[in-house]
């Protein structure tokens, strides 16, 4: 069963804390993460299903899946000086792949790919104790053509039904966002206005509106990663979002959001 749903920023500067950052802003995001960690502990999840967009780490141009599921015993990765490793909830991950394919989603699965920092950063801050195993769910966001927002929403709806039919208590986490443009001229000017309109839509309980956004609009507004949120929205449906924080830094719109399920 689905017991919780969260969207969490994975901005690397939140963990790396270089001197380019506004210390107070970073600490406010950390405080919102701490609230999520306490919520997750109270929800007593048996597993965390984490939807994240690989930053061309596990999947390079030799093979680019739109959607993928990690189904190994464990998964691991590195990011700069950080090394991380998580056990995978193997039976749940396998159920997601098998039932996802039954439902018409041609999922790639892997038992041996590296795990991107997009999975690690939110878990670093919010993993409850005792730490449950995870199910990493990849959505292609950086290598066009990416799955459409509509397809992400439909996959999320199927994912929600699959998780909802399981005996385990599962918390769903979408990692990423909001507006940012790494590697481009717009890196220092994210589209905060667009972010705020999205958050208003989510607070009003109209998450399904995002299924109609186009891939072009996501690219234009620096929100290619919002595909992970849109996937989650398919699973939680039109419930009002509780925005723990929205902190616009010089390069990222950092958001921490919960949907009560």
């Amino acid at each position: 069963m689905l017991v919780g749903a969260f969207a969490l920023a994975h901005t690397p500067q939140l963990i790396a804390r270089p001197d380019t950052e506004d210390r107070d802003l970073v600490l406010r995001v950390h405080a919102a993460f701490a609230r999520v960690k306490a919520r997750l502990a109270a929800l007593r999840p048996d597993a965390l299903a984490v939807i994240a967009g690989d930053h061309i780490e596990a999947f390079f141009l030799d093979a680019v899946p739109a959607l993928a599921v990690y189904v190994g015993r464990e998964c691991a990765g590195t990011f700069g000086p950080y090394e991380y490793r998580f056990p995978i909830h193997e039976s749940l991950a396998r159920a997601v792949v098998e039932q996802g394919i039954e439902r018409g989603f041609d999922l790639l699965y892997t038992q041996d790919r590296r795990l991107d920092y997009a999975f690690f950063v939110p878990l670093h801050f919010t993993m409850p104790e005792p730490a449950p195993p995870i199910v990493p769910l990849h959505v292609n966001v950086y290598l066009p053509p990416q799955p459409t927002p509509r397809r992400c929403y439909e996959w999320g709806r199927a994912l929600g039904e699959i998780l909802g039919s399981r005996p385990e208590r599962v918390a769903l986490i979408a990692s990423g966002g909001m507006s940012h443009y790494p590697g481009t001229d717009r890196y220092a000017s994210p589209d905060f206005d667009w972010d705020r309109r999205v958050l208003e839509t989510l607070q009003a309980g109209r998450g399904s509106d995002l299924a109609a956004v186009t891939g072009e609009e996501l690219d234009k507004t620096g929100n290619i990663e919002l595909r992970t949120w849109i996937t989650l929205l398919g699973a939680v449906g039109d419930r009002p979002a509780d925005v723990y924080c929205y902190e616009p830094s010089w390069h990222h719109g950092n958001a921490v959001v919960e949907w009560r399920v």
Partner: protein
Amino acid sequence: MSEDAHYRFPPAAAYRLNRCLFALKSDAAFRQSFQQDAARAMTEAGLGDHEQKLMLARDRDALVAAGAHPYLVFMAELRLRMDRSAFEYF
């Protein structure tokens, strides 16, 4: 996706260039070999003279115009500069 998108389809002609940037980002051994002898590392990675010049000039716009993925250019550059001392100021 339009041609003025921030992230465009990576052309096949730039595959080796992107593979080199990917290795700089994600393969510590390649990064070390690049730092020791960039020309040799890039030659072994299959990059031609023009691509090697673009890489050595670290000209982002020229690399992207040649088909490099902007995120890979960004992270390869960052990883080459990144060390522990650049972390955790607060």
